């Protein structure tokens, strides 16, 4: 048996027609992720990262090129692709449990199994105590964790994450990065993570795609070797992060300073 193809983005271009012309949001994107691979997308605001995720989800099928998931063209959203949006997007009128369970509406499992799955995933994100709370009673970080539980509860083989940790404080962020890393690798999940945090990309991903804006395109794809993946204080980790920051047009000195910041944070 040949290896499953995973996610394939082949020559994808996307244009938005707006008042007074068109915006080329994506231009000839070629990107693949093997089964079980963790891919990070970094790039300046407006370079088309969220747009690319919406196309992978099948929320928008009006584009040039092809997107294949497990070899099949994407026609519409499906439960094989879990999504964590840039904002938590919980339904305010449902409790935490209700929000996570909502993702199982189309699942054919029995009621008891569904209940177990919801409880298990609330436990995973450490929110069992808040099962009956409403979203307005949660902090931003807690809400985002519920959104992560909702995306995972179907056990999707593909996980799309649009800056899932962007709104969190540094401490929660570091903790959730570790959790995410464990969940994705334990579940053999193929993940695409959009992030502004280069440190996060290097820490979590197997490969990093750096995007440039106007039009949104891929400037470089950098592999992350296993030794780098583990340890933020590795010289290799810091060198890779500086390379990515350089590609993003951030001055090298700034990159070094940011790196030193992280070292202090990790040491503390």
């Amino acid at each position, binding site marked *: 048996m040949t290896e499953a193809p995973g996610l394939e983005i082949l020559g994808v271009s996307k244009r938005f027609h707006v008042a007074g012309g068109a915006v080329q949001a994506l231009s000839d994107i070629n990107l693949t992720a093997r089964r079980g691979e963790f891919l990070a997308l970094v790039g300046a605001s407006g370079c088309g990262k969220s747009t690319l995720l919406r196309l992978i989800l099948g929320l928008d099928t009006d584009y040039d090129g092809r997107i294949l998931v497990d070899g099949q063209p994407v026609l519409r959203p499906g*439960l094989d692709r879990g999504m964590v949006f840039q904002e938590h997007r919980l339904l305010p*009128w449902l409790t935490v449990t209700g929000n996570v369970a909502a993702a199982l*509406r*189309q699942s054919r499992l029995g009621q008891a199994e569904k209940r177990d799955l919801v409880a298990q995933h609330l436990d995973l994100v450490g929110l069992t105590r808040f099962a009956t709370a409403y979203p307005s009673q949660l902090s931003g970080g807690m809400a985002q964790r519920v959104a992560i539980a909702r995306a995972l509860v179907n056990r999707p083989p593909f996980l799309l994450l649009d800056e899932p940790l962007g709104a969190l404080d540094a401490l929660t962020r570091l903790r959730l990065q570790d959790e995410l890393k464990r969940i994705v690798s334990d579940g053999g999940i193929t993940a695409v993570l959009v992030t502004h945090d280069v440190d996060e990309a290097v820490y979590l991903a197997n490969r990093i795609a750096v995007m440039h804006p106007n039009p949104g395109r891929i400037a470089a794809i950098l592999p992350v070797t296993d030794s780098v993946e583990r340890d933020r204080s590795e010289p290799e980790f810091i060198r890779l992060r500086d390379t990515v920051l350089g590609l993003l047009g951030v001055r090298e000195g700034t990159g070094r300073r940011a790196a030193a910041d992280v070292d202090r944070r990790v040491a503390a």
Partner: protein
Amino acid sequence: MTTRWRIFLPWIVPVLFFLAWDLLAHFGHADPRFLPSLEQVGGRAVAEWRDEDLLGHVLASLQRAGIGFGIGGAAGLALGLVIGLAPLLQRLLGPLLLVHRQIALFAWIPLLSMWFGGGEAGKLAFISLAAFQPVLTNTWQGVANIPGKFRELAAVLTFSRIDTVRLVALPAALPSIFTGLQSALIYAWVATIGAELFLNVAPGIGGRMNEGQQLFKMDLLLLCVVLMGGIGLLLNQAATLLQARLLRWRTA
């Protein structure tokens, strides 16, 4: 100011109003036939209660308002949901409903009394129509304006049509629907008095007002006005309380 005092705040102006009324009636050289004192109105209330089955009249009016509110509200809710969720219907029926909205409520009375007669059917038709309009408009707008991000979420979770309505569209529109229902309650109440005044004589507060006018019983007229306002206020308060309970996720 402490919160203890704050709860009396809304009562100050009404109390002053009634005080001024009474003082004017007693010392203002006003013709008592046109401005009876509070005691006179109170005396009339006691007499009405004893001899004219005041409670029965109030209940008759409330029942009429309730039935009309039920019929009109249910119709408005159903039609509003359907139109709000079907863009095609929205295009098709939108203009007609906008025209409907321009027609003053009481302009329907002659028409409806021709179609349904001036009896109970005509009255209920008018009250239902009064309740229908605000529920329809608010439900329709509420459902049509569901944030795009929630529509997207429903798509990502591959919700069925029924789940999309039940878990997303309806709750998202609920605050707006409640606004419509609350207006409808007051509209139905006002329309009830209107129907009782302008259509055939029947038990009800409006009927008593008719008698007050014909027999020149000013105290009876004023009693009815006070009753109408008081009951309307109570209905409004009840609706507000119910809404706070049902929408507790907003403040929870």
